[in-house]
């Protein structure tokens, strides 16, 4: 279904807001930049920098098998169902090999964590846990159930179940309602080669990947004339027209990225980021957060979760590696933020476009389902169990999928509102063709 004209008018309104926003701030930045060649953004008031909050949106692309990350355990009906319908991907507490058993989690619910996710287990089991696990998240309205990766990713990232083709993603709308650091060169980063749908319509987004990718955000990345090239570009675009302002912002962004010594970054709190794609991207984001350049939003994509064939939940198989790397990266990031005193200002939300079916398929893998768990991690998070796990009885599993019990928009709106202070969380998702009434969830501390 395509948006109606009134939805597109909503888009147009946001377009004017975000463009005005963008140009106004760019003009400020351009003025500040006029006489200084900078490495970082200009000297910003420590006070205002401290009040800036960052939302990190980690998207697991390919539809993660929620039942393999948050594993039903114990003797209850759901766990029995799960174990009876899995073979190669079946995990159980009574496994003769301890390393294959799900990790025990506090909170009195019959679920364990994938055995490789030790970092997340440790966070969840703290006395004041910063990790919330939300069961059964997806699209509530069966008319909007969608098992197409492309459709579902787009609908989730635009924040409109059943609707596609808006020109703004939910994070762009979030940025409109966010406190911005005056003079910030850019306030959104996508750790990817192109900004994701969730940031569609936010022109100042910088996309840069971690590891060796940080040198890629540059007109002439491997060039021997990089410095004079940048200098020449600045003089070519020294006017006051729209293109000049945009180019100056782009060059300022290049300066911020290339002026940040990512290689020399020292994580706080003794955190160690492994050398994996997801960890390198989170470390990049951590570097920018601690540099206090005014980052409000960061996105990370983690691919590979579409495990139709030989899912590999044990012994360094595919899913095992993904779960291990995700857990290690998220834990390192949180430890780093905590050690540096930033954990109250940063929140991570982890989501996938949909989950996978209860019954294993004929190729030791799983096929597309519906609901999956979400994770929310941060210093203001009130950790523990949230949402509602549906019964896995065959009468309650539409198309053999875990039935969605929690609207993903409530999770996102709660995170935007309670964790990073968005001023109008309902406006993030409510539109005529895809209505939404905000009802905050409980995973936050005041």
């Amino acid at each position, binding site marked *: 279904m395509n948006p109606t004209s009134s939805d597109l008018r909503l888009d147009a309104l946001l377009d004017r807001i975000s463009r005005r926003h963008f140009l106004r701030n760019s003009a400020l930045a351009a003025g500040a930049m006029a006489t200084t060649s900078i490495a970082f953004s200009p000297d910003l008031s420590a006070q205002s920098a401290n009040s800036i909050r960052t939302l990190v949106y980690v998207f697991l692309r390919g539809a993660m098998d929620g039942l393999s990350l948050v594993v039903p355990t114990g003797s209850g009906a759901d766990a029995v169902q799960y174990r009876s319908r899995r073979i190669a991907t079946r995990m159980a507490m009574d496994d003769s090999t301890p390393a294959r058993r799900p990790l025990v989690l506090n909170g009195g619910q019959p679920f364990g964590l994938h055995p490789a996710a030790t970092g997340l287990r440790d966070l969840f089991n703290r006395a004041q846990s910063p990790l919330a696990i939300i069961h059964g998240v997806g699209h509530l309205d069966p008319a909007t159930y969608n098992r197409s990766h492309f459709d579902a990713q787009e609908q989730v990232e635009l924040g409109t179940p059943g609707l596609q083709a808006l020109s703004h993603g939910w994070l762009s709308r979030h940025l409109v309602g966010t406190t911005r650091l005056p003079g910030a060169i850019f306030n959104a980063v996508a750790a990817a*080669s192109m900004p994701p749908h969730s940031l569609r319509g936010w022109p*100042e987004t910088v996309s840069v990947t971690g590891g060796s990718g940080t040198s890629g955000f540059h007109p*002439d*990345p491997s060039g021997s004339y990089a410095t004079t090239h940048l200098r*020449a570009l600045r003089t*070519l675009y*020294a006017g006051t027209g729209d*293109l000049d302002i*945009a180019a100056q912002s782009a060059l300022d962004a290049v300066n911020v990225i290339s002026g940040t010594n990512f290689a020399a970054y020292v994580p706080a709190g003794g955190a160690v980021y492994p050398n994996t794609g997801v960890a390198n991207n989170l470390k990049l984001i951590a570097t920018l957060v601690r540099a206090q350049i005014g980052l409000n939003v960061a996105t990370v994509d983690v691919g590979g979760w579409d495990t139709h064939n030989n899912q590999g939940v044990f012994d360094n198989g595919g899913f095992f590696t993904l779960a291990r790397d995700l857990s290690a990266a998220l834990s390192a990031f949180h430890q780093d933020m905590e050690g540096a005193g930033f954990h109250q200002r940063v929140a991570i939300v982890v989501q996938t476009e949909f989950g996978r079916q209860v019954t294993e398929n004929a190729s030791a893998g799983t096929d597309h389902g519906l609901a999956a768990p979400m994770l929310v991690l941060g210093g203001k998070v009130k950790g523990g169990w949230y949402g509602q796990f549906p019964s896995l009885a065959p009468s309650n599993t539409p198309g053999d999928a875990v039935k969605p019990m929690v609207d993903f928009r409530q999770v996102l709106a709660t995170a935007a509102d309670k964790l990073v202070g968005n001023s109008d969380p309902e406006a993030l998702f409510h539109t005529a063709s895809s209505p939404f009434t905000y009802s905050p969830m409980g995973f936050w501390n005041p």
Partner: protein
Amino acid sequence: MGFGPARRKKKSTRAAPLDQVFGDEFEILGVLGEDDVGYFRSLGSTDDARLQAYVDQQLDPSNIDDSALMARLAAWPASFSTLNQPLGTVFAQRSCQSDYDTRMRPLREVEKAAFTRAVHSRRQLFELTVDFWHNHFNIYAELSARISASWHSWDRDVIRAHAFGNFYQMLLASARHVAMLHYLDNYRSSIAFNENYAREVIELHTLGAEHYHGLGQPLGVPALAANPYTGLGDAELDDPNIGGGLAISDPTRQIAAFYVDNDVYEAARTLTGWRYDNANTTNACGTGAFHADTNHHAPGQKSVLGRGVLTHRSDLPAEDDGRITLKMLAYHPATARHVARKLCQRLIADEPPESVVEAAAATFLQYRLASNQIAHTLRTILLSPEFKDPALWGKKTKRPFEAVVSAMRATGCNHTFRQDDSTNPSSDTTSSFLSEYNGAGQPLFRWRSPDGYPDTRSFWQGSNTMVRLWRTIDWLTDRDAATASMRVLPIIDLTLANLQGDPTARQVVEFWLEWIMGFAPDGGWTGPPGTAIASAPTALGEAALRFFTQIYPGEPSDRTIWPADDMPIARSALEVNSGGYDWNTRLRGLVALILWSPNFLQR
């Protein structure tokens, strides 16, 4: 008017004196496709005469010899294997296959062909217009195998076949094609209709959202002063039987000036039952051919833009029912304005003067039945005073596709972008190019919503787009630069072919500025020899000369500095880097800088 002038060779009548800035006597013998600047100047003695001659030539593409491009495509038959094959053949082989590469192949081949055609065709206005229509009738080509496996036909039989032709014929072809039937869901619109296609065909393809009257009742919509179909001479619109007793074109009939939601629903009903052949067998996937299925067609009379009065009688055959709707939409004056506005936005400015929009709309409407309606409309725009008005030059920023294609044309690119570009032992040049290019935000045929890539300045001014675009251009200047037979942009070759002996820094800079920008202002870009760099008459000239000499008083340079005039640079040093000068890299960096400039990236 195309993707920028091609600059590959200069035909000079004599050797250039070393101390002279290039004058225009050297371009007089320019050949189209090799030196478009020179060619353009050869077309007449005044700008108006030259423009008119060029436009009239370009609007008659079959009389422009494009055999060089054809030979280029024919030289790699495996890379362009589906381009000339019928829809049915390829669709049957590929659309239901489980192998992803098999299903995607036609799309991938057309994507590369689009670059090769845009860079190398002499029918530039045609290629520009093809790009326009691909966006106007946007389809997200990766949405489905039904689309990617029929893309060669969508590109050829719908877009390219009608780009200069008749709008109604193109609209009808688009509505019947499997790619559009699938993309906007009309293939499954049944008696309980799906409004998606009808909504977009009215809102985007024809009348335009600017003619939407909201949730109003049809009777409340203002009527056009006169019935726009009267006197057109269309047999179906003149037939009272089709219109349920009153011909659609009857002068007493009132036709709505705007559309309301009711018109969308009624139009959707007329378009129900339109299908493509999807009959998969063990060995084949169906042909994708169009047919109309009466069993899924909504029965009864309908009223589209009729202000409540019926326009389609009951029991019209499914195929005719929808087709009458498309005719009414195509021939409506609002459509003329909508399409005219978009064409003016493409060619002149984001907000073109109303005067040229009106003029183009009038032409579009006047030639509604003509087989070259669109060519006529383009002519009105391109020969208008608004198009020629210097106050409106530079109003468009080049989107990434236009930017990189014009950059390649301006620097004599000789590469054939193609699927399976494997002659380079280290990597597929076309694939590497596309992964750079796509990061700038305009991957061909991958815009998800039916409105197509935006055509406004602001959309393309994001930091990411600008940096990635600059980076892509830089990549082009560097790719395989060291190997004569493989370099994508023959920068060193053009330099050595057009400069005699050992040139000075200023001569190199003047040459390249004039070459890429297509002209030199009076006094040159950097001024006559001896002009201090800081006194260069143009900002671009100063920046370029400063970069090439690396003279930045008080600031560090990247390489050893060199005077602007006093010392010639050895030709051999330009060919191969040596010492602290790295002239070859510096030369390519100079070209990149000019291609990055606002002078080049706006038009």
